[in-house]
């Protein structure tokens, strides 16, 4: 039995807006032990060629919809593991940007290995720059997220 509604494969979440803030970038840099001053100090960022404080490369992992998309909402969090992640930048993410993001449910596939069986969930998040008229335009970054959803052991034994 699947807890993931397969009829939702291919769906796109509601758009949500991410305001990229200097404080959020600094706290992210601190959490991961990123020492570079370009993530904290505007003069250092400018000296490195950025108009504002840039986000560390994996920062868009924090671009999350206010509500979990329908296809992952009811999953048992204890059985979720990160599988893969990718970031493809068209241009750097900078503090002050307002980005419109959407999550796409790309596909789900069953996999078995020595350590058990699981479902492999693929999602893609696109972030586009919002202009002064609130229109989403230029693509800034695309993130690919592969999540592993382990089946409970009791279910595997039956």
């Amino acid at each position, binding site marked *: 039995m699947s807890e993931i509604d397969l009829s939702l494969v291919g769906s796109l979440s509601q758009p949500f807006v991410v305001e990229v803030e200097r404080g959020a970038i600094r706290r992210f840099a601190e959490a991961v032990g990123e020492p570079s001053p370009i993530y904290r100090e505007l003069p250092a960022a400018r000296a490195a060629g950025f108009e504002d404080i840039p986000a560390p490369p994996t920062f868009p992992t924090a671009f999350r919809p206010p509500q979990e998309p329908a296809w992952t909402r009811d999953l048992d969090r*204890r059985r*979720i593991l990160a599988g893969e*992640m990718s970031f493809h930048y068209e241009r750097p993410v900078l503090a002050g940007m307002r980005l419109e993001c959407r999550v796409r449910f790309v596909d789900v596939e069953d996999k078995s290995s020595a350590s058990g069986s699981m479902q492999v969930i693929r999602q893609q998040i696109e972030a586009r720059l919002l202009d002064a008229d609130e229109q989403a335009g230029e693509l800034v970054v695309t993130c690919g997220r592969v999540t592993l959803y382990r089946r409970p052991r009791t279910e595997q034994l039956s």
Partner: protein
Amino acid sequence: MNGPLFVMKTGETVSMTMPPVTTTQLVQYAGASGDFNRIHYDHPFAVEGQMGGVIAHGMLTMAFMARAVGEWAGTPGRVKNISARFTSPVRPGDRVRVQATVTTPEAAESVACTLEAWVDDTRVAVGEALLSR
């Protein structure tokens, strides 16, 4: 400023070891990334989930990989693409060692490298990065 990745030859390797992961860091990272899954900071919950205790966010390991690549590029923020696949859990107390191997010739427009993350003799993640000059 150009760092070592821009002058290394194809097949050359560079590595860096991060400070040990702490539980405080996992709570900090949960807040900073918005990933509040309790398997990363709630021990009884993580044991029920058959993980044998708390595990670090895979994305924290990837952030270590990105930090190392940024430092080796000279100026961080030149990362165009970065990807990672997580192969084994990282736990509080573990020191993650990140290693990059250059895969493009010196004169190329951009530098590509393969990435590996290790805790002692266990490979915890593999990946790739592409940097612009």
